[in-house]
């Protein structure tokens, strides 16, 4: 009996998709890959329960078939696309909200629930899950954990690990494990294996359920934008606000080029790009949230302090609102959503390094040099503060990529790799929100050195046959050695 026959027998034929057109649909995400690199899965499965996933993995284990699990397929670096065929597990069919404990401010969900579905479910309790990437309508909680993606509100609430209390996974042998501390908000017990899941890209197990910490919905939010003569000045300013004791909800520094990518609705309304002062090199979008009086006090103080940093408040609300719509509310004029318009010809491609705070400007200039060297059209850079109440940021160094041109995709890869390696040379990290995927696998040792061996051992414990998302994080050949 072939593994596909076994899947049909175990799940029922309605949960197994084999048609070439169906497999084609599940083979791509947002990452720039040439048509030649496109390898659709051999079979797509639509599980409904953890038991279904256990059945799938046991069959895959017995036949040594690759298993790649995915959610909304909005990844920007190919983390959830299969590169060796095999079984694609679509977890979006598992999107139930299992339990809301409003007193404890927690929710238990199946891993395929989108971030928006979770928020729709908990909103009546005046609670929300503040982990909010731009893809929140489509990005699932399982993917958010496995990719360790970014969040608009990271500077107040942190990244996904800050709200992940516990997760159920099915390992590469088909064992069901609960990792974490149930509904307790933190623990000092045992090794924190749950933390291994953040950015694991489904290489340790398929995440099937998660318990998440929620936060009370703030009554009021105020978003402003300030322009600075230098990116470094914006960083210094934020550092000063944190020292002053302000509780910032969102802080995003954009280079001036990047603003254009995020002001689609402004252009729709006024037929031109928003104008910012010619001297401005950095735009800081900053939000405060809470009770009106608290927000007003914090905002007023922040604006007062801004003068010390040669900053200027953007008075034209349409610019701020356009940017915020793009980043968070996604409230665009009907039939004029931003993405297709900005990507008519090319894909958005990015490197996501992390560098020491004081070297942001230096790295920005390197980004421009490297993009120009590889002859790529620059979208720009932004830095999102993503560590609770502290100055640490993720970086998005973005360019346009024509995915139909093998040469341009090749140049994009060289650009990505060069910036990733440079970040390590800057005493930073190669990834802050996209993880490693196949892209960084060949040179992961550069960042992790001897500890890479321990990572591989961890992988072997969870997935001894290496069937889970092969080729991601570690090269396939290496892993099997």
């Amino acid at each position, binding site marked *: 009996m072939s593994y596909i026959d076994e899947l049909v027998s175990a799940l029922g034929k309605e949960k197994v998709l084999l*048609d070439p057109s*169906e497999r084609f649909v599940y083979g791509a995400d947002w990452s720039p890959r040439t048509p030649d690199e496109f390898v659709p899965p051999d079979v797509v499965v639509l599980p409904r329960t953890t038991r279904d996933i256990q059945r799938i993995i046991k069959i895959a284990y017995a036949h040594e078939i690759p298993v790649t699990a995915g959610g*909304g397929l909005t990844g920007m670096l190919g983390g959830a696309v299969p590169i060796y065929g095999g079984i694609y597990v*679509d977890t979006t069919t598992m999107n139930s909200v299992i339990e809301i404990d409003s007193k404890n401010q927690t929710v238990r969900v199946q891993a395929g629930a989108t971030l928006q579905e979770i928020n729709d479910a908990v909103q009546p309790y005046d609670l929300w899950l503040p982990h909010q990437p731009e893809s929140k309508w489509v990005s699932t909680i399982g993917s958010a954990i496995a990719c360790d993606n970014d969040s608009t509100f990271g500077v107040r609430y942190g990244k996904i690990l800050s709200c992940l209390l516990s997760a159920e996974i099915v390992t590469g042998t088909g064992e069901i494990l609960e990792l974490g501390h149930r509904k307790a908000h933190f623990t000092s017990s045992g090794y924190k294996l749950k933390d291994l899941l953040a950015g694991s890209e489904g290489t340790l197990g398929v995440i099937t359920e998660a318990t998440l910490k929620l936060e009370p919905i703030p009554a009021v939010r105020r978003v402003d934008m300030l322009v600075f003569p230098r990116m470094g000045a914006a960083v210094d300013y934020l550092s000063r606000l944190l020292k002053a004791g302000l509780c910032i909800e969102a802080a995003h520094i954009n280079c001036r080029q990047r603003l254009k990518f995020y002001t689609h609705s402004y252009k729709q309304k006024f037929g031109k790009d928003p104008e910012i002062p010619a001297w401005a090199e950095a735009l800081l979008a900053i939000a405060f949230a809470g009770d009106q009086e608290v927000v007003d006090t914090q905002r007023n103080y922040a604006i007062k302090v801004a003068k010390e940093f040669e900053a200027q408040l953007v008075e034209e609300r349409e610019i701020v609102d356009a940017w915020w719509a793009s980043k968070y509310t996604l409230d665009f004029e*009907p039939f004029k*959503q931003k*993405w*297709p318009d900005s990507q008519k010809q090319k*894909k958005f491609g990015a490197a996501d390094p992390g560098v020491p705070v004081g070297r942001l400007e230096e790295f920005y200039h390197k980004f421009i040099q490297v993009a120009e060297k590889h002859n790529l059209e620059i979208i720009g850079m932004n830095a999102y503060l993503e560590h609770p109440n502290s100055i640490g940021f993720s970086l998005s160094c973005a360019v346009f990529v024509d995915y139909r041109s093998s040469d341009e995709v090749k140049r994009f890869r060289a650009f990505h790799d060069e910036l990733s390696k440079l970040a390590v040379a800057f005493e930073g990290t190669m990834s802050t929100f996209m993880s490693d995927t196949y892209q960084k696998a060949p040179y992961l040792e550069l960042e992790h050195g001897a500890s890479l061996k321990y990572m591989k051992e961890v992988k072997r414990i969870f997935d001894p046959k290496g069937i889970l998302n092969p080729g991601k994080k570690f090269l396939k050949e290496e892993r099997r050695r």
Partner: protein
Amino acid sequence: MNSLEEFKDELETCFGTSCGFCERGCPVYQTMKVKTLSMKGRNRTMLGLIQGKFEITPAVVQAAFECTLCGNCDRWCSLKNTEHTRAFREYLLKHGIEPMKEHSSLLASIKNYGNPWFQPRSARNRWTRGLNIPKAAPGKQDVIFFAGCTSAVTKQLNRSLVASAKLLQKAGVNFATMGQDEPCCGSTLLRVGQTGAFKELSAENVKKFESFGVKRIVTACPGCYTTLKKMMEDAGSKIEVTHISKEIAHLVRDGRLKLNKSTERMTYHDPCHLGRLGGVFEEPREIVRATATFVEMPNNRYESRCCGAGAGLQSAFPKLSRDLAAKRVSEAKATGATTIVTSCPFCETQLRTVPGIKVADLMELLLDATDGNGKNNDTKRAS
């Protein structure tokens, strides 16, 4: 109307973007949870097909036709997604795919009877009995009231047309109907991919309407509304096409009708063709607010969820179609409403298939609430 190949750049853009924002409001995807049935997946299927990545298979045909063309995906996107799907269906038919057997019978009926319901042409005029409505003649009227086949030939839906006509009379509109000569608007042909037949019919229809010398065509059917509107605009005609709710709402707004307002909680379901695709949102709400205690469903206006009846889904995929109706009714019930008001014969029929809530036509609701009609809208039209 563009062919599928002409949309290639848009399909590439969707493939390149991959945002999937269309999935959230897609009633079919949210029920089936199969990505090939979301717009992002369907765009990919079209792209793969014209790139020669795979052949036409039953799964490809299913991806093309398992969609109500409700336009929810277009609300979140600047691409012409529903147009892609229409072109996809046309492409399949051109490439030798037989129309779905359920659709074939609809098409045969349109050809023979001028409606997809196998009803004789004479049935089109039954609803006007006793109303003393003149038949359209060149130069004799300002407005043609276009009844639309579904309400005209379905006895249970006749009352909504009667209500529309009576309200037009109250408004003092100089109107006529085309009686049994009223043609098919072509909506069904267009939605199931019969573009050639639609173009032929459109040319004839435009000529007919122009020959009457009218200023406006008023219809109570949202499908007819968007189809006729586009048809007349594409032909460069000066005849305006409008929906009955827009024609009548001013009577309510100007206080020209004495209304008995009910305390019953009612919600309004935006028909896709009237709301999202036709841009008519507020007039129906004004009418419901004036006649009952209005409550809004969370998914309203542009974000309204399709009832599941449209674009051949009801005939070809009845179970899915019923599931979509059940979802919409549960959204209505969650508001505490005991009646869903709508303004589309398809939505009305479809929502009635789900027990536990009353379904009312907008014009009937208004007429029943009008002083002198002596009817209590609390108890009317129970499903």
